[in-house]
């Protein structure tokens, strides 16, 4: 029926009005009385979420039914697409992604309303800020990027298809999970603002923030890991991180979020961390919003770039500047510096070091991300800052952080002495020197000094953390259920596994571009890659060539790999489908290039040792976050007002 998409449009407008109404109610709480205002805000937010979900559902339905009278559907889908990709095509473009963003904000608001049962000034203010954010973003969607714009009366017969790069299982999960994390930081942001509007006991605030911060951070970690894995096999470049502006846009909230994750727990034990807590809560979501701006405004060129429209950029920039500016103004006016005897060699001291280093990392990434953009805007030049900058500046900081990680968890609060760490330090130092000396004969690879040093730091972290993890697990099963300790060790172990993966893949990967005819073979590091033959292949919306490779490793079974080159008809776009044989120690990676001459193809072949460790590490970090989140109870105390 022709009117159904209008229902979605209308639902979104209702949702906007309800969120505006919630803001008004939160402001008028003194006139209405707390209990009544809270009751009304609750039902309002439930309504806002209901209409948000309805609007999303209607768009989903339009995709499922190939309703090309909706312009957004016509631009991002086609009748030949598999149903699952038709549904996911919803977040394949700018308008739908923003609707997904808004939907997730609605869901988080709903989650808060359900968790925070009783009425209090704090709860009302938090709900009010969340509603304000909701209002801003729904207005943004309606004003500049409405997914319900129609193509009437001339309805296209078929759509333009979803970007073939996105027609992949990775695309089903990556955006929603990433957004759950991104947008989840709205909760700590709102809570921090609510606290600043009516300050009270900061330790209770920290306890309340614990749950949303942990969930959001875990989702963000999972989302980034998924994205990296997807880029690795789908983009056909064999890389796993490109320092692409959009990747950086998700890395910045993650780094900030990591600092927040640690500060939340610290502030629940030591009130002096309150300022860090408030600052990081505001900072983190500001970075999420900045990321949204960078991606959505089309200001950057990137693999993720959507259609550029300066109107969108201006709207969202004004909105962000006002929200973030107001938030930090409030922070600057209200925060209370607490007297603090801070010693560097104590848990507090190391946590402050951690926060400082992570904020510095964010600044470094921000600078590297924005510099080419300014060059583009002012000099009209497309410049690259590129991996050398990021690697050179960030690697030393990351190594330092890993070294901190291997003893910071065991240091005491307030004050500790080096004496306690003397023996382990001597053992570790001694064995490191020995290991460094004999590594040449011990390790089967040739590594440079930096890689060797990194590996050593990671190895120490793995050993120390494994030891404590086993001890922690033992206690866990004997009834001392300390989720936090377990989660921390799991996360730190993940970091070290990730580090090993990064170091060894970067140092030992072999990439080779070769020209092959059927029947020809090439040998790389003792492994023979033979092109057995080529055949044609096709699907509902593509046709292409499938190559058959046999890979013969020394003393091991033969592997068959089938890389493809597909040509997607509706968009006339060639796509490389890589073929990968993976095990825990080595990836055999083949990407088909272009046909060069008669039956001869250019082929990219990579041997990527330890590349799986990257995502294994990422998953372990996310698992750590999830364990912590599952072990967190929502505090029942209503100390705050």
């Amino acid at each position: 029926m022709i009117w159904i998409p209008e229902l979605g449009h209308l639902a979104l407008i209702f949702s906007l009005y309800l969120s505006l109404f919630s803001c008004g109610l939160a402001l008028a709480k003194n006139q209405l009385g707390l209990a009544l205002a809270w009751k009304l805000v609750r039902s309002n937010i439930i309504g806002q979420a209901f209409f948000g979900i309805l609007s999303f559902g209607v768009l989903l339905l339009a995709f499922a039914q190939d309703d090309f009278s909706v312009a957004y559907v016509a631009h991002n889908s086609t009748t030949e697409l598999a149903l699952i990709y038709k549904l996911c095509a919803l977040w394949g473009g700018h308008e739908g992604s923003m609707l997904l963003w808004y939907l997730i904000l609605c869901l988080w608001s709903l989650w808060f309303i359900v968790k925070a049962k009783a009425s209090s000034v704090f709860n009302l203010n938090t709900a009010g800020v969340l509603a304000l954010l909701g209002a801003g973003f729904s207005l943004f969607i309606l004003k500049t990027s409405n997914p319900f714009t129609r193509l009437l009366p001339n309805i296209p017969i078929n759509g333009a298809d979803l970007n073939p790069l996105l027609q992949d299982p990775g695309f089903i999960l990556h955006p929603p999970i990433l957004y759950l994390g991104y947008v989840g930081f709205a909760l700590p942001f709102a809570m921090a603002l609510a606290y600043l509007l009516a300050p009270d006991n900061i330790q209770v605030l920290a306890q309340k923030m614990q749950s949303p911060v942990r969930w959001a951070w875990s989702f963000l970690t999972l989302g980034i890991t998924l994205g990296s894995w997807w880029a690795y096999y789908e983009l056909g470049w064999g890389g796993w991180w490109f320092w692409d502006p959009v990747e950086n846009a998700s890395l910045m909230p993650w780094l900030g979020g990591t600092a927040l994750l640690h500060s939340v727990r610290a502030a629940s034990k030591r009130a002096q961390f309150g300022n860090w807590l408030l600052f990081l809560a505001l900072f983190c979501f500001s970075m999420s919003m900045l990321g949204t701006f960078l991606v959505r405004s089309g200001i950057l060129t990137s693999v993720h770039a959507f259609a550029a429209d300066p109107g969108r950029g201006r709207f969202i920039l004004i909105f962000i500047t006002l929200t973030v500016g107001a938030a930090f103004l409030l922070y600057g006016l209200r925060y209370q510096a607490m007297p603090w005897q801070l010693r560097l060699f104590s848990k507090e001291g190391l946590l402050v070091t951690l926060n400082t280093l992570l904020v510095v990392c964010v600044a470094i990434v921000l600078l590297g991300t924005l510099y080419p953009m300014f060059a583009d805007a002012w000099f009209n030049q497309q410049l690259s800052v590129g991996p050398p900058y990021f690697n050179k500046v960030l690697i030393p900081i990351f190594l330092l952080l890993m070294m901190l990680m291997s003893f910071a968890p065991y240091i005491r609060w307030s004050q500790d002495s080096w004496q306690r760490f003397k023996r382990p330090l001597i053992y570790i130092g001694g064995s490191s020197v020995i290991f460094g000396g004999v590594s040449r004969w011990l390790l089967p690879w040739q590594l440079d000094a930096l890689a060797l040093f990194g590996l050593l730091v990671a190895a120490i972290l793995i050993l120390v953390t494994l030891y404590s993890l086993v001890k922690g697990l033992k206690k866990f099963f004997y009834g001392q259920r300390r989720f936090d300790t377990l989660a921390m060790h799991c996360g730190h172990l993940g970091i070290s596994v990730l580090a090993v993966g990064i170091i060894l893949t970067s140092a030992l990967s072999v990439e080779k571009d070769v020209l092959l005819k059927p029947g020809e073979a090439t040998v790389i590091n003792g492994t023979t890659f033979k092109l057995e033959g080529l055949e044609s292949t096709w699907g509902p919306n593509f046709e292409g060539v499938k190559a058959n490779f046999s890979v013969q490793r020394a003393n091991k079974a033969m592997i068959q790999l089938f890389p493809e080159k597909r040509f997607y008809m509706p968009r006339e776009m060639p796509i490389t489908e890589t073929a990968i044989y993976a095990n825990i120690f080595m990836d055999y990676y083949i990407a088909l290039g272009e046909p060069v001459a008669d039956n001869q193809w250019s082929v990219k072949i990579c041997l990527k040792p330890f590349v799986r460790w990257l995502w294994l590490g990422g998953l372990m970090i996310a698992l750590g976050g999830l364990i912590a989140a599952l072990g967190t109870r929502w505090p029942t105390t209503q100390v705050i007002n």
Partner: protein
Amino acid sequence: MMLRVNGQWGRRLHLAIILLSIAGLSYLLWQGLKANPNYQPPLHKLKALPDFSLPNALCPEQLITPMAWQGQPALIHIWASWCQSCIAEHKMVQQIHQAYDWPIYGVVYQDDMQMVQQWLAHQGNPYQSLVADEQGSLVVALGTLATPEWLVLDAKGVIHLRHLGPLTEKKFKQQFLPLLQHLKQEHL
């Protein structure tokens, strides 16, 4: 161990720093939304080439010095294989190489030389010679802001023109060609 500013002034200072950085960043981003299409960094005075001695990217045993770039007006192209705009520009460089016989000297900035060799073997090599600047010392000495960048040298190795970003055909014909011809006349 930490710098601490206390009291009312400390608070005001913190507030001012935070708000100024937000305002500054917003202003920059706002500017970023509009583009000024014709900006080029000024080249105030003619600059001689810095002294260097760096390996050839295609055969590392051979060293290249500024002497190699002298004798006739030439183009210098500073690029890297990790730089997407440089990769996109490669066809253009090939065209210039084929259409005109001005020598093009390349400087590869902080790159894996194996990747560079593979890339050129595949896509063709328009460079008369290619310097491998793995540490970035030459690029810093040249005053290059980012890749890609183009320089025009006269026969004595003095830089006469600097162009940030990818080179367009229009720009090459309008600015580079007349300058190169002028420099050649002058040299004769």
